[in-house]
């Protein structure tokens, strides 16, 4: 007689019930979404709710599960960027800032090494020639003394500088472990700053994650375009206050050593010669807010931290009557003349800002500068209309596919076909339940994956039913035929599904974006379809069999 233990039956029933309940919110997507948004907003506001929020909250009973399937960018619309961080920029900055220390160290040993001169070289490499070749060993030792141990887990016990000699020149660059450690820091900082900037714009559920060694993937649903996103995160926002050496209209003017020729951002054909070494930089800002100047034009007010305020105070008191430059990303946004010493560390930046520009600049300054420039390798914008069209088309296709497959199963296996169809519906519910509760993302290929699962899910049932038919032909008793049918079909079902699971796994690990969504849908679909086809249909057949006790069955 067909019989499975009670605990097994209860477990199967419980899983099915969970699947149906947990997938339900997806049928009422907009209502549940409004409910969830309201719940978050109320929690953020310490439990105080507006009438609107209370109404939204009531759209979905709170005792029900409210986890939803995330819709991918291709379904919801939004912006997608893949950025490559120019990590090597940071090496160059580090090496450049090393030069004064190297110069001082060698100057202390002048009597042995002779005259010291910085030679031109590629970014990230410092070349210093010394006058007296015999003092090379002393010079190298002096430079090596500047190196400090690498601060990282893998680089323990190694120095951060690599000092070699080439003829009369000392070549200094970052050592390999230090580069690795620097890269990690650069990436972490970039991620953090991008996150702060995107959050400041206030969009929902952005995805910001590191990809590979030097890439960052940014996906922001609901944002108008990738260009907009690029404007927010693409600017380095490196703010410095520099000494102005001169002002010119000649774009080819020679700025002289350790000065730079920078364009003015609002005056056409005006260039400033600015000292490279900044007086104070944006890292020492503690706050920046959009505000207005005396003439009610948009401006940005800022506040320095203690050391920044001291440096700025000393500099301004020593240079009254001189201009200084406020430089943002290698452009002079303004070059005011110092009227009086600015103590207390707060000030205001004026320029030809629009209100929007000043607001954005304040956001960027607050979030901090990116440690390195970024290149954008991939940009995608998907309009919400296209996403909605895709959802609608996918829904239609899924429903038609499901109805057609169900009819076909019914025609082929009669009552047993109906059992398989019940399992198919439970399977769909389970797929959505699992996707919702693991916070999976549904993409357009993911919908295709689910539709494909509809076709393939009945396969396990087909295998079992065909096997039962065969067993019935060799005159086994009905109960025995069912039992053997399930038993014998098992190895084929397992082997067939594990191979498909291998494919899904490869797709998941090597695929990106929408393809990964497909892999997740396919993988979940395989597992749930084996569960429903083997256990759920079997349970249904058992209950039916024990109830009707048929003397013969037609599959």
């Amino acid at each position: 007689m067909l019989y499975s233990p009670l605990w097994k039956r209860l477990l199967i029933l419980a899983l099915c019930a969970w699947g149906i309940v947990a997938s339900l919110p997806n049928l009422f997507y907009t209502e549940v979404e409004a409910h969830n948004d309201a719940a978050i907003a109320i929690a953020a506001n310490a439990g105080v709710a507006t009438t609107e929020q209370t109404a939204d909250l009531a759209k979905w009973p709170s005792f029900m599960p409210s986890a939803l399937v995330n819709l991918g960018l291709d379904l919801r619309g939004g912006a997608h960027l893949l950025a490559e961080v120019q990590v090597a920029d940071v090496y160059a900055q580090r090496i450049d800032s090393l030069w004064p220390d190297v110069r001082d160290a060698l100057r202390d040993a002048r009597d042995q090494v002779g005259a010291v001169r910085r030679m031109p070289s590629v970014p990230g490499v410092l070349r210093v020639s010394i006058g007296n070749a015999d003092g090379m060993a002393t010079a190298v030792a002096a430079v090596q003394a500047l190196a400090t141990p690498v601060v990282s887990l893998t680089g323990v016990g190694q120095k951060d500088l690599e000092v070699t000699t080439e003829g009369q020149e000392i070549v200094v660059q970052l050592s390999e472990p230090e580069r690795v450690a620097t890269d990690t820091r650069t990436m972490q900082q970039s991620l953090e700053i991008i996150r702060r900037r995107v959050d400041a714009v206030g969009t929902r559920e952005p995805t910001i994650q590191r990809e590979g060694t030097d890439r960052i993937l940014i996906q922001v649903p609901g944002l108008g375009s990738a260009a907009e996103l690029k404007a927010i995160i693409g600017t380095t926002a490196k703010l410095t206050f520099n000494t102005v050496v001169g002002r010119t209209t000649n774009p080819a003017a020679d700025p002289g050593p350790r000065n730079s020729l920078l364009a003015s951002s609002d005056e056409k054909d005006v260039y400033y010669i600015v000292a490279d070494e900044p007086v104070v930089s944006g890292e020492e800002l503690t706050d920046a807010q959009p505000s207005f100047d005396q003439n009610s034009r948009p401006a940005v007010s800022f506040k320095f931290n203690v050391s920044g305020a001291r440096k700025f105070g000393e500099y301004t008191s020593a240079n009254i009557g001189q201009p200084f430059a406020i430089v943002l990303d290698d452009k002079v946004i303004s070059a005011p003349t110092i009227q009086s010493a600015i103590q207390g560390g707060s000030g205001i930046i004026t320029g030809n800002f629009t209100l929007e520009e000043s607001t954005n600049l304040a956001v960027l300054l607050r979030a901090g500068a990116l440690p390195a420039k970024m290149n954008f390798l991939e940009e995608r914008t998907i309009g919400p209309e296209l996403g909605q069209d895709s959802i609608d088309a996918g829904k239609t296709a899924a429903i038609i596919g499901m109805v057609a497959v169900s009819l076909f199963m019914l025609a082929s296996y009669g009552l047993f076909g109906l059992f398989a169809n019940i399992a198919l519906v439970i399977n769909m519910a389970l797929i959505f339940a699992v996707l919702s509760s693991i916070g999976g993302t549904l993409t357009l290929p993911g919908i295709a994956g689910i539709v494909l699962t509809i076709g393939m899910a009945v396969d396990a049932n087909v295998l079992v039913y065909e096997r039962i038919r065969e067993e019935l032909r060799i005159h086994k008793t009905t109960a025995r035929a069912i039992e053997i049918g399930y038993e014998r079909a098992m190895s084929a079902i397992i082997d067939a599904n594990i191979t498909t699971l291998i494919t899904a796994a490869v797709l998941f690990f090597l695929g990106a974006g929408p393809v990964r969504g497909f892999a997740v849908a396919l993988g979940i679909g395989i597992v749930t379809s084996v569960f429903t086809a083997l256990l759920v249909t079997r349970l249904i057949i058992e209950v039916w069999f024990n109830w009707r006790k048929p003397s013969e069955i037609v599959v």
Partner: protein
Amino acid sequence: MAWRLRLAPEKTSIDFFRHQWITFGGSMLLMLAAFLFWGTEGLNYGIDFKGGTTLRTDSTQPIDVGAYRQAMEGQPVGDVVITEVFDPSFRADQHVAMIRLSSVEADQAVSENELSAVKAALLKLDPAIKFVSEETVGPKVSGELVYTSILAMAVTSIGIMLYIWMRFEWQFALGGVLALLHDVFITVGIFAFFQIKFDLTIVAALLTILGYSINDTVVVFDRLRENLVKYKTMPLRDVMNLSVNETLSRTLMTSITTLIAVGSMMVFGGDVIRGFSFAIFMGVLLGTYSSVYVAKNIVLMIGLDRSEKPKNGKPSDHEFANIDA
């Protein structure tokens, strides 16, 4: 006896090797043709693999591709390909076009300025145009995607091969995977022949074909394994025929249900996903064919060791000597 839809008679005894020069040989010929088209025509790569930008426009005004093309002339862009898109799911006044651009400079992504110039030119032509999607892939990423896709194919094939080797025998693994490659290459050949856009989702579809097709083959192999134990003296060729005949009804049933589902996706699922659905549809057709006509032929050609005699004093290590089924 209640009425049932039957795709195959209850008991068949078709000799699947009878016309093997037509079936298996035909398959090999098709594969050769696929390679030929692939080599000569090449694939119509999308921006995922080639780099560049695609714009999808959606307008209430009918599209005149010629006028669009004219509007592009004089714009600071490289190659422009404009195709109008038709789909049964579109509204009556919905006219969609896909525009593929490459930058003026070789090996560069289309810049912001180039893109806005193109958009402005199109808006001048038809102010009702909406740009519903915009995708740019730089040359660096597209090169990597080619590599990753090939890697994914190789890893999947090897993974499947190892699993079948573990569960069956190496001959089965080889036969199964060669049948898979047959399905995939012919599908790629079809894409080359019809010059259908080949992008990253198509690679996902090809990988899915790998998964589906092996599924079908494994069911036949599973029955073959069972029958090899049952009929120890029957010639291999006959055991194979018996196994395919016994599983024929199931093979057809599963193919049909999958084709129904994928076919519905292909017809109603919208144009964005059509290439993907089409690839899977073809793959399922080919996969069914190859599990009946290709995979086992390869196993037969290689031959199986069915002896039970212990070798060198060690018990025989192959699957059918000591199976407990």
